[in-house]
């Protein structure tokens, strides 16, 4: 597979269409991340679209040494922060059933799953922005703390604390839900 850096070079050499390779590689994945981060699909798609546009315009500043995905993620996180700062609503943290690609086992009890998702969305929504961001980047996107530091600009020890506290908080909320 052609590396991201090689694709970037082609785009910088005038092959605009090559940018669609990067869109195919990252768009869906980052829409999912953005949905969890900003809390609704409409804003998430807008944020991701804006991220790609900004990345395209700034492509000359991309350094091969950095993973393209991480560079893109840094732009995305900052765009998402802007949207959050505007204070738009958080809703439909998890995509609608119809939109999600669900494993077959889950489809056996769609109502239970919907209820579970609702509770989980509520739990995640109770985290502060920084905690939610660190939690998602570490446990869902699988980034190391060093990578998260590069993406968010926060220190590693602060990030570890945020992730630890977010896990504690989520566990507390989710266990409370289970007891009801």
């Amino acid at each position: 597979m052609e590396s991201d850096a090689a694709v970037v070079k082609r785009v910088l050499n005038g092959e605009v269409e090559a940018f669609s390779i990067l869109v195919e590689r990252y768009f869906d994945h980052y829409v999912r991340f953005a949905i969890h981060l900003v809390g609704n699909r409409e804003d998430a798609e807008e944020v991701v679209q804006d991220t790609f546009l900004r990345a395209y315009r700034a492509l000359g500043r991309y350094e091969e040494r950095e993973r393209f995905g991480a560079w893109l993620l840094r732009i995305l996180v900052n765009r998402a922060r802007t949207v959050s700062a505007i204070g738009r609503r958080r809703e439909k943290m998890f995509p609608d059933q119809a939109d999600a690609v669900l494993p077959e086992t889950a489809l056996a009890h769609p109502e239970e799953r919907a209820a579970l998702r609702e509770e989980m969305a509520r739990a995640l929504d109770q985290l502060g922005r920084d905690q939610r961001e660190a939690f998602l980047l570490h446990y869902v996107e699988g980034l190391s703390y060093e990578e998260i530091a590069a993406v968010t600009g926060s220190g590693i020890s602060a990030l570890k604390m945020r992730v630890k506290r977010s896990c504690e908080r989520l566990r507390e909320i989710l266990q409370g839900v289970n007891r009801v």
Partner: protein
Amino acid sequence: MSDRLPGPDPLAMLITELREPVAVDPASKCRLMDLIREAPAPAAPPVRLVPNRSRALAAIRRMRGDAPRTASASTLATAAGIALVMLVGMQDRVDTGAPRSRRAVVIGDSVASVASAIRDTLRIVQFMLTAPAASRVALAGDFNGWDPREIEMARDSRDGRWAVTLALAPGRHSYAYVVDDTQWVRDPAGMAAEPNDLAPPRSVITVPR
């Protein structure tokens, strides 16, 4: 990367749910590509203002008269920086692995001839970061097109302090340290730059005239 799941089932279930892929309308990506096609072409990579060491040394030779004086302003700027490395006070020893630093300081100045016609005063600035656990530290900034490889910092093995000295033109400069090629850190002792979603964490130094 981490595959560890943090604890009991509810949290693990949440993470599993969050990792589920979502379906995206292909039309969204088509619309995005339409916008990309209409957008202005991306700007070319920034021009390097600080050349590599061999070019800088060649520039020093030219300044001494060993070769015709046809160096560019940026070449001479770096040459002055390398030629006029000055020592500043030692920092206290530290034992932690976390990067720390003294603020970047202006420690002198130099005058370089530019294109045989313009004279420009450059200030000598020393950048320091204490990072005993790092195996490599570089300085990147707007003065070198944010190249994370070009300006390597030298390590003092006694206290884990990394330092480099540059000649910079008066004015405001943004910079960051790149630890072990991956971690971009702002100067812990410096002034943080305004957040910019296209740039790594960075600091700002104002070099006086």
